[in-house]
């Protein structure tokens, strides 16, 4: 006897609940934020505590161009979602491609920065506390960029195969939330590492 508890006196008003995808993504963002907070705290705590060089001031250049690229990709991904919500799949695909390009430029910039730091300045993760905290914090962020790029690329591939439609707008919105989060984290990392930490 699986009696359902159906006492339907109360019919007034529609029963609305938040989207589980968006709630889930916000939960993930909360958990990820806590991870980043710990790494940022470690970075700030160890600023200037390295026993030997090189120091941030000696080797770090402010990555203006790639940072602007990454932050503008938040705008392009927003337009991609907006286009898909209005069933303009081709426009959405173009905006997605733009987002991937901008994210890719950022990632390439990080790669070139690391190459220079490792081969020219001799700074590795085991050189000193600055190296340990710098590579782990920036690397943690870069790994989130990579995950985001893979997911955006998957969305783009679906779009080119014609399998992306208006019905997927909410899923793309969930992905865009993640991407906005990755950008927001970069604002913090940029401030801590390149502005305050130098």
């Amino acid at each position, binding site marked *: 006897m*699986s009696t359902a*508890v159906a006492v339907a006196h109360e019919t007034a008003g529609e029963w609305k*609940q938040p989207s589980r995808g968006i709630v*889930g993504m916000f939960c993930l963002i909360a*958990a990820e934020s*806590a991870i980043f907070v710990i790494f940022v705290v470690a970075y700030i*705590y160890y600023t200037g505590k390295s*026993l030997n060089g090189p120091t941030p001031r000696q080797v770090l250049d402010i990555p203006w161009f790639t940072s602007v690229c990454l932050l503008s990709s938040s705008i392009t991904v927003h337009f991609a979602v907006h286009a898909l919500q209005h069933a303009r799949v081709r426009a959405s695909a173009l905006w997605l491609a733009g987002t991937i390009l901008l994210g890719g430029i950022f990632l390439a910039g990080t790669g070139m920065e690391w190459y220079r730091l490792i081969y020219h300045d001799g700074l590795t993760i085991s050189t000193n506390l600055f190296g*340990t905290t710098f590579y782990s914090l920036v690397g943690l962020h870069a790994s989130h960029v990579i995950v985001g790029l893979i997911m955006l690329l998957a969305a783009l591939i679906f779009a080119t195969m014609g399998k992306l439609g208006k019905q997927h707008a909410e899923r793309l919105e969930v992905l865009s939330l993640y991407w906005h989060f990755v950008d927001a984290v970069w604002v913090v990392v940029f401030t801590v590492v390149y502005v305050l930490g130098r």
Partner: protein
Amino acid sequence: MATQTQVAGVGYQAGAKGPGGVFLATLQDWVMTVDHKKIGIMYIVYALLFLAIAGVEALLMRIQLAVPNNHFVSPQTFNRLFTMHGTTMVFFVGMPILFGFGNYLVPLMIGARDMAFPRLNAFSFWVSAFAGFLLYFSYFAGSGLYGAGTAPDVGWFAYAPLTAKVFSPGHSTDYWTLSVLLSGVGSIGTALNIVATTLCMRCKGMKLSRLPLLVWLYFVTSCIAFIAISPLTAAQIMLIIDRYLGGHFFDTQAGGSAVLWMHFFWIFGHPEVYILVLPAFAFANEIIPVFSRKAIFGYPAMVAATVGIGFISMSVWAHHMFTVGMGPAGNTFFTLSTMIIAVPTGIKIFNWLATMWGGNIHFTTPMIFAIAFLFQFLIAGLTGVMLAASPFDWQLGSSYFVVAHFHYVLVGAILFMIFSAFYFWYPKMTGRMMSEKLGKWHFWLFIIGFHLTFDFMHIPGILGMPRRIFTYEADRGWASWNMIVSIGAFVQAIATLIFLYNLISSYFKGQIAGPDPWDAWTLEWSTNSPPPSYNFAQIPTVESRRPLWDIKHPEDPDSRYE
């Protein structure tokens, strides 16, 4: 839901394929399931397995400490035993058993057919399960390919710099790190699922103000999990970087800080206590009203107190570090915040007492466990307030007094409520009642054993016995106390064996329960025992906090008063 039916379909097809097919089909059904009830039961069974293992480890330690100058186990083995006991009990018994009940009950209580993300749910369980087996695989592979294996021996909070490669060579510490990291991933997944389920999967009329308190408490627990477990994940990543990539996070030789690890660990470690105890409160919130035959007293106050505990729990971690020397400002802050958290907890205790006050109390096995929980949790809270006073803590930090205090919380409060929950929801999960007679035996033996062990454990602590020593000399005056403590441990072990026997025998021979054996009021009792895979044939609609009361008493429904 589509995935669910698909997977079940695959299972049945395999079953049709000839001899041995039934076993394989059952196995496949359980391994591949995304049904929240099956995953919940797997969590619970898995936790019971580890409860037995970690319990045996505790018994071995108690044999070693029963008499002075004992050589039952070596100091090295003793270090491994307390490390594995602590890690297992927190990460592979406490967390999975509580998440197991949450998985099982939350969708049923809010009138949903499954969790918000069924596949993520299965993933979280299997990752957590793998993490537990990884931890114990260290016994075979801990020191790598050469020589015999060893388990981790760095203690469950693994203070730096003991965990540095120099001081902990081999791979035993890495097994600890990786298994704790993975268990954290699983916990975050399940916590995410519980929050999304609570917010997005409620049946019609199940407003947040009508959620069963169990669901509210699981919701808050899960929110704490995001903020508390992630720092541990971050700290474990740092430890891996230190051990494998030559990083210096906790390397004191290169300017790194050992105290930073303590902060990071306890930022996780103290909220973790609330992650474990809130589900125990959640069980009490459902069980005490049913057996007092009254609605819970002060529902809004309970919710507010829970949310308050959630917030304050984030600001008490450094009371584990009074002996480090944080300076007067830090000590004062953490003393105050720790004492403040006793206030919402006190509100809860008074609400439970007020629920029982004037009620028609039925002393069934779940209820007597819940009543014992109330008393023991009060005492555990009082020694907590004592230890919160930093000067007092300087005297007794890292002594057996501390060990007795937190076991009073973990066993006296949490484990008692878990037992209570077993007796209460077992009929729902299996369709059969657990034996009341064996239940009473279990209760009385366990409570006697518990008090023998953990009441008397305070005394050697006050007499100066430090925790984690593998033996002691006869002239310290600790010997008779330790003997009593060890005897109590064995009484508890016998009681637990009775419980396990009861679990198994009731499955085959227990009295048939029917859908609602306790005459309870929340939605899980409105469907069959055990519930069908879709939970509810028709999604219910609710109008009050006690939907089944409304059905049973249409002349006087709760909705009139809320």
